């Protein structure tokens, strides 16, 4: 370890707050529900949050970006937060009724029509 005096703690050092401090130390969603990378997140229109809801700035950053359906990875990229942190914050927002997560299918893709759509889409690029 380096001498504490040599440690650089200016802005060049990147975020000083550890990622999981934003989630108060939680690394997995409280519900235990699995949220996939391409699951869609959408804000509940006109949702009234319960009194116990404590939105931190990161919750708000996420919420402000899911007016239209957005995937978890895109949300992480746009909010500039690690996917693991986003998952925990999404579980809070779901618990408060602020958002809904629409799961993408988990198994092998066997829908021929969907595969043909992707094929034709790639050919038309």
């Amino acid at each position, binding site marked *: 370890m380096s001498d504490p005096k040599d440690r650089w703690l200016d802005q060049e050092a990147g975020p000083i707050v550890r990622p999981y401090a934003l989630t108060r130390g939680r690394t997995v969603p409280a519900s235990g529900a699995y949220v996939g990378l391409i699951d869609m997140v959408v804000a509940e229109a006109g949702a009234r949050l319960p009194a116990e809801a404590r939105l931190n700035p990161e919750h708000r950053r996420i919420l402000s970006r899911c007016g239209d359906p957005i995937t978890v990875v895109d949300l992480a990229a746009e909010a500039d937060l690690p996917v693991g942190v986003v998952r925990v914050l999404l579980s809070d927002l779901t618990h408060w009724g602020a958002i809904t997560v629409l*799961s993408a299918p988990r198994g092998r893709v066997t829908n021929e029509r969907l595969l043909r759509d992707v094929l034709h889409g790639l050919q038309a690029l």
Partner: protein
Amino acid sequence: MDYRHSDQVTAEAVPAAMKILVAGGFGVGKTTLVGSISEILPLRTEEVLSDLSIGVDDVTGVRQKTTTTVAMDFGRITLRAGHTLYLFGTPGQERFWFMWDELSYGAIGAVVIADTQRLDQCFAAVDYFEQCGMPFLVAINCFEGTPAYEPDEVRAALDLSQETPVILCDARQRESVRAVLVALVKHALQQVRVSR
């Protein structure tokens, strides 16, 4: 938690997101391939190679590579009909393989990039996709000055089945990458029909 399954929602309401994995050894061109066709700059978490990681990463034959992708790396392509295709680069080093299972859920298939100078680097990826039954193909990334091997020689060296496509590509060229993805989706469709 309140989860709904996407097929309970009409296709018009929510655009379909699909994914394809891009695998292969360290420094083989995964990020380059994703970046060639993605409409966004690939999101990546890179760690600078330090003395610590020498010995962990095999850099023999890796040209001027100073960083490696250790976390996640993705790109996005918007297709017509409202579909969005995501390309996920799998972590190249074996110590990050715990992420593979998660990346594999619901994927159309995988592109395994091979460098003929270091073919052994893609054995693990080939094994993984064969075991989980995911459609995959091997794309030989042709760097300048790389000795050329015929796809059949690579197929034999990797002990691949006749059905597994092996194609040549240039990960820097968008058209070439597009051809690789087209070949993969065709292969995935073929696999679905065979299993019926």
